[in-house]
């Protein structure tokens, strides 16, 4: 039974639709419409997979044998993880790699930023030199370094032999310690760029009067660097360091393409181990438990990052 009130309501709805179709939205409606796609995407591609990872980490799923059911195993796989020597090895690798590839890229990045911060003829080439390592795919830059460091025909060994500096080739990627050094070096080359860009934007935000005032007071270049540049750059350095830590924790492509984690497991960080467990051993359950640990590690660094950024 349609009443007058019902008809009015219906007409109201129709008018509303017409208004929406004309693109005549209220601010709140527009906000909803604009933020919805990004939110839906992020929920589907991050939150849903996270849920599945948590679920799987507590179930047994090995694709290596046919499996009818999906047995619930509780925290068993986490217990396995904390008793797994290879897991601890991957953390040790991550620790050494992380320390090296946070410190050295910072030094390289600072050097690059200080150079291109100046205005000089040919600066665009120097700028290109700063961005190039960032723009190279991590996998291919690591592959290139493995070619340059090749023991038989590589550029480095070839040059050292040619100059008579060594009598036989150095096995850069074949010895545990040297492989780690090579990994840190290749990674530093690739990631110093991004550090440089963060520091460069920090340098650009230092007020020029500070230096002019310094000049009036008769400070030397070195003093200006020590007492003006470094303190003013502090927050950029902190951001760069934490950001770099987050990325370093997740490193996968570089060791995969440079050393494949070898020799043995000498350069196998957590992500490479997760990959092996998952796609080589096809143990999706245990792989998920390991992945969850990686997420937790990242989250700690990320929360730190956000606190610094908003501070």
């Amino acid at each position, binding site marked *: 039974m349609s009443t007058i009130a019902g008809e009015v309501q219906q007409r109201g709805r129709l008018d509303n639709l017409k208004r929406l179709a004309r693109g*005549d939205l209220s*601010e709140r409606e*527009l*906000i909803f419409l*604009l*933020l919805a*796609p990004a939110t839906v*995407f*992020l929920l589907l*591609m991050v939150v849903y*997979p*996270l849920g*599945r990872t948590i679920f*799987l980490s507590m179930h047994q799923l090995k694709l290596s044998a046919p499996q009818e059911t999906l047995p619930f195993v509780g925290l068993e796989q986490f217990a396995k993880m904390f008793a797994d020597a290879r897991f601890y090895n991957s953390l040790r690798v991550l620790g050494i790699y992380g320390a090296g590839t946070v410190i050295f890229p910072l030094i390289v990045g600072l*050097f690059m930023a200080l*150079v291109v*911060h*100046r205005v*000089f003829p*040919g600066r665009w080439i*120097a*700028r*290109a*030199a*700063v*961005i*190039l390592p960032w*723009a190279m*795919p*991590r996998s*291919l830059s690591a*592959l*290139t370094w493995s*070619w*340059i460091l090749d023991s038989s*025909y590589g550029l480095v060994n*070839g*040059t050292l*032999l*040619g100059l008579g500096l060594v009598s036989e080739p150095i096995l850069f990627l074949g010895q545990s310690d040297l492989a780690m050094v090579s990994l840190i070096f290749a990674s530093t080359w690739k990631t110093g760029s991004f550090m440089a860009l963060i520091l*460069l*934007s920090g340098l650009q935000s230092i007020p020029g009067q500070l230096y002019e005032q310094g000049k009036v007071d008769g400070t030397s*270049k070195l003093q200006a660097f020590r007492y003006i540049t470094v303190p003013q750059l502090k927050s950029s350095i902190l951001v760069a360091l934490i*950001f770099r830590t987050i990325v370093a924790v997740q490193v*996968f*492509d570089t060791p*995969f*393409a440079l050393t494949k984690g070898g020799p043995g497991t000498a350069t196998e960080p957590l*992500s490479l181990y*997760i*990959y092996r467990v*998952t796609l080589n051993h096809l143990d999706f359950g245990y792989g998920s438990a390991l*992945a*969850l640990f*990686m*997420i937790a590690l*990242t*989250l700690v660094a*990320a929360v730190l990052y*956000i606190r610094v950024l908003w501070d």
Partner: protein
Amino acid sequence: MTRNGLDFDTKLQYFGFYVAVVLLIVYSFTPALWLILTSLKETSQIIKVPLQYIPNPVTFEQYSQVFERAPFASFIINSVVVSLSSMVLTVFIATLASYALARLRVRHKQAWLTAFLLISTYPLIALMVPLFQTFREIGLLNTYPALILPYSVFSMPISIWILTTFFRTIPSDLEDAALIDGCSRVGTLTRVIFPLSAPGVATASMITFVNSWNEFTLAFSLMSDEHRYTLPVGVTLLRDQFVTPWGLISAGATITIVPLVLLIVFYQKSLISGLTAGSVKG
């Protein structure tokens, strides 16, 4: 001269500075240069002892070989399709969200931006299993959307940061004028804001493109069919042979980095400004 100019006091300081510049250039360009040199040699020159630095004669044999010995044309097509699609999708969605965050009275603005930032730090390797499973269930493994969808999500936070920063620089008088003149909110967006935001959109597009073009982890784990490999995966997996074909790898890698080098040469300024938008206070 600006304050950043070369106001050195002594000749020695000038000299030192240019030494630093040369050092920087050599350090950054050596790997790419060595790739190109290797790619122009015959295999016999590549494995020569003592080392032969300069290709002589110059040959394009490695380039023609890489197309014969691997479905290299497919790699290129796959990379182009995936990178361009995820670029368009990401930037479109990010533009909408950024406009809201920059110009409208969104509640908890900082919380939104923080959430986006947090999501960008999610480890890709942790997505391998759930995405593999999900895409297998809905039949997306070895298809383009399997990469386009996750790539769009992971470049979205930086795009949103870049665009939000950019939208804030557009004077709000323009919008107000359009609204007063009877333009609807959507009309204001499409007729006033979007045209003005072209530079910001371009920067976000380039960075999204580079991210997708270079991605390895997901491309490697979600595409098992060789004909679906993207360039970084296809080139990296050339290595897995009894004798590593460095000539082919160098040719493949050189082709892969061509568009990246072009972007660096022509758009270095926007790249630099865009890249740091997400990492420092906007």
